[in-house]
């Protein structure tokens, strides 16, 4: 990956600690680094992860620092504050890394990787790689007793930690306290990489002192003789309260300043990557003088994530869960290309080659759906036998294939066994066709919901509306709207404290303005 980045044309890589962001007339102009060098820029993306004023806590020991023994970004945090941004403080944690050679896997259950490998990418062929398994083991009453006996040494309970941690990623001491009736918690032992002996003890995130860490690890089956290579720790860091951002991830107050990842109050990995690409796209579009690019809640999980962040904010490190998406059925991994390729193509991120492939694929899918509508399955012995085998009811007359596919127990692949002339198709096409047909009813329901949702999304609100002057808005709504400056009526409707009546008032006000500017009646 490093090499890929280094080889990218037009990308210069400079590694230095940035201490200050320079802003002139509410617009970024550059950054000052630790050694005093100034880099000028039209747009800046800040992605500080957990390094922004990071503080590491292990037991009673705590010191300024970032992950992997790197320096924290302390002055940058102050610089952001000086620019008028409101910062908050979150906490997250990590488990110990242990030596693979000290682990007895015979006492654990093997957890092999997926049999079938799926790609993120829709264009590169699936590569079968050698898989390394993970191992499952469990904590027990002894482990829990060790934790309870040492709770007073936990910085969380001793009050050393102030930041708010994520609920989806609780430390083991948290789990033992909060779910006291659970007799065991599952622990996955995962390799850190192919070329290291380090293993990650998933499920044992902790900030207890290292001696307690060792004691509790060694109480777990298979870890009786375990050696810790790096102890687990908690880390506290600053984040930017994300309601200060536009859906493009640009700060509302400072033109050209973008933030992405944990600095926006989200958890790591996928959430960070999702914001990274949006901030990157928009920084580039801004430099080119083009309109910002955003994804809607109905188009992508990225849309859900960013809309939640900038509209509602978050009071713990935000994790994107499918439960947060109202249109989950439309946001499937199998149709990601269908949802996003066209959009990416428009802003120049999708190559002609990929675009062509995509069009061909969805052409095939649509044609196959049409074909299954007109293809009549005969009511003969062969069909009858197949249906008996599938435990499905028999036909009373020749029936369009699509009706059979709608039966839960009948798959397209089953029908393709019949001696009827089927076009050869790739598995992924068949799968997609099957999903579109089988769940058509549900998909249609969601599409109807999306249509209603998009009506309000389409009514844009400009940034310079003075909400306090709009008569009829409740005081709370006016205050919230003035603070959040939503970009559309739809976004406004999701701000807590803005009622349907307020939205009606806004719609009337918009119409008033429209008539006034168009000369009135």
């Amino acid at each position: 990956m490093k090499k890929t980045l280094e080889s990218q044309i037009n990308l210069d890589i400079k590694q230095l600690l940035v201490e200050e962001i320079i802003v002139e007339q509410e617009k970024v102009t550059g950054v000052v680094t630790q050694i005093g060098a100034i880099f000028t820029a039209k747009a800046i993306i800040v992605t500080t992860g957990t390094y922004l004023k990071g503080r590491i806590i292990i037991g009673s020991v705590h010191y300024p620092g970032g992950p992997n023994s790197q320096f924290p970004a302390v002055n940058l945090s102050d610089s952001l504050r000086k620019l008028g941004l409101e910062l908050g403080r979150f906490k997250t944690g990590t488990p110990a890394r242990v030596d693979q050679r000290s682990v007895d896997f015979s006492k654990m259950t093997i957890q092999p990787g997926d049999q079938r490998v799926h790609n993120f990418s829709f264009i590169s062929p699936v590569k079968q790689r050698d898989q390394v398994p993970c191992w499952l083991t469990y904590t027990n009453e002894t482990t829990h007793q060790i934790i309870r006996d040492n709770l007073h040494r936990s910085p969380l309970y001793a009050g050393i930690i102030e930041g708010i941690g994520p609920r989806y990623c609780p430390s083991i001491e948290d789990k033992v306290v909060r779910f006291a009736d659970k007799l065991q918690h599952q622990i996955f032992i995962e390799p850190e990489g192919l070329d290291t002996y380090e293993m990650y003890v998933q499920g044992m995130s902790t900030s207890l002192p290292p001696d307690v860490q060792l004691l509790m690890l060694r109480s777990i089956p298979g870890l009786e003789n375990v050696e810790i290579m790096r102890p687990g720790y908690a880390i506290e860091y600053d984040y930017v309260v994300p309601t200060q951002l536009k859906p493009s991830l640009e700060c509302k107050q400072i033109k050209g300043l973008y933030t992405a990842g944990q600095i926006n109050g989200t958890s790591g990995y996928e959430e960070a990557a999702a914001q990274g690409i949006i901030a990157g796209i928009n920084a580039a579009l801004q430099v080119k003088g083009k309109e910002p690019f955003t994804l809607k809640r109905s188009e992508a999980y990225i849309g859900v994530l960013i809309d939640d962040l900038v509209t509602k904010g978050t009071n713990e490190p935000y994790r994107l869960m499918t439960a947060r998406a109202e249109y989950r059925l439309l946001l499937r991994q199998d149709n990601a290309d269908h949802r996003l390729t066209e959009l990416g193509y428009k802003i120049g991120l999708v190559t002609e080659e990929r675009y062509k492939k995509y069009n061909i694929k969805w052409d095939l899918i649509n044609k196959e759906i049409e074909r299954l509508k007109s293809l009549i399955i005969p009511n003969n012995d062969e069909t009858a036998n197949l249906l008996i085998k599938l435990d499905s009811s028999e036909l009373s007359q020749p029936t369009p294939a699509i009706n059979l596919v709608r039966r839960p127990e009948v798959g397209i692949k089953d029908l393709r066994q019949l001696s009827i002339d089927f076009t050869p198709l790739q598995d992924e096409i068949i799968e997609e066709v099957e999903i579109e047909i089988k769940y058509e009813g549900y998909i249609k329901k969601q599409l109807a919901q999306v249509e209603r949702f998009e009506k309000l999304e389409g009514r844009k609100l400009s940034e310079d509306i003075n909400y306090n002057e709009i008569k009829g808005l409740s005081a709370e709504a006016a205050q919230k709207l003035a603070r959040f400056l939503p970009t559309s009526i739809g976004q406004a409707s999701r701000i807590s404290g803005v009622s349907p009546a307020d939205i009606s008032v806004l719609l009337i006000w918009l119409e008033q303005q429209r008539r006034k500017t168009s000369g009135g009646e």
Partner: protein
Amino acid sequence: MRGPKSFTAEDVVEISCHGGIVPLNRVLKTVLNQGARFAEAGEFSKRAFINGRLDLAQAESIIDLIRSKTEAGAKIAISQLGGKLSKRVSALQSDVLGQLAKIEAIIDFPEDDLPEATLDEMSLCTAELINEINKILESAESGKIYREGLQTIIVGKPNVGKSSLLNALLKEQRAIVTDIPGTTRDVIEEVLNIRGVPLKIMDTAGLRETQDLVEQLGVERTRKFLDQAELILMVVDAITGISEEDKNIIKLIKGKKTIFLINKIDLEARKVTAEEIQEIIDGNPVLEISAKNEIGLDKLEQTILELVLEGKVTAADNILVSNTRHKHALERAAFHLSEVIKGIRDGIPPDLVSIDIKSAWEILGEITGNNVTEDLIDRIFADFCIGK
């Protein structure tokens, strides 16, 4: 009426029907089942304005209208939600949320060690939820009481203060609607208004001078008489205590919704307390009053409301809309839950089944005003130990 010549400039259908709540309710139910919905506060005016029917000068008055109607609506909603209906719907909604959280947790955290949710179990739970909705829907039939008044009888042995009680209630309410002779010569029927609930009170007028209610009417006739009553106010005397006569009457009214009233508590020489009576009667409320001095009447009115209407109290002129709106929401929720059972039966994957559970939850939220996604997320984390 074809748009744009209607008030809103859109196509409009107006339905005129016979007076009375029953036909109105039926028509409303029919159109709602066909996919219509209730208008939001001020929605017609809003549409008229946005469609260009009203001029700019009228915009402000529409905004005022939306505001005031919303606030009035909120007041009604709050008054309705004070009571048991809201509690039951909230409990129901919470159960639905629990089901949803279970599915969502499994979908979002497939690797976590979560309690297994079998589809059979979920079908069963969902069926129970539908059952509960149906029960609530049945109890929502209190509309009858508003239309016809609540049949109430004051009973008690002579001289315990039945008439004083009636007079006190009448005086308190100052809302005598009618004063008509009852179905028998012996009975006077008064209609009065207890906090928005019409109460048809029958005082056993002809029996006032007699010594024994049972003797006078005959057991059979008295039973029949009492059977028609939807609420009984039984008055006992704090001074004389519980006598054999009282016990006979208690036997007669066994199983009826009754409020026991210990009257004359203002006098010194009381012989009976609420606790003592509580022992003879099962579960019915016992109140201490003084009809003469109007002590404890507030509490009595409150108890009447709670007991009979299970908290479902509305201002009389809003009953139709509010009831129908809630009823419709409950019916829609039940529909989605039945889709859940159907989906499970048809082998639809859990992440699709959950769409209907979520719809049911959101619809119940229209009644309780409570359906933010954050509640779901909170519930998942509260119920399940999740995470790396």
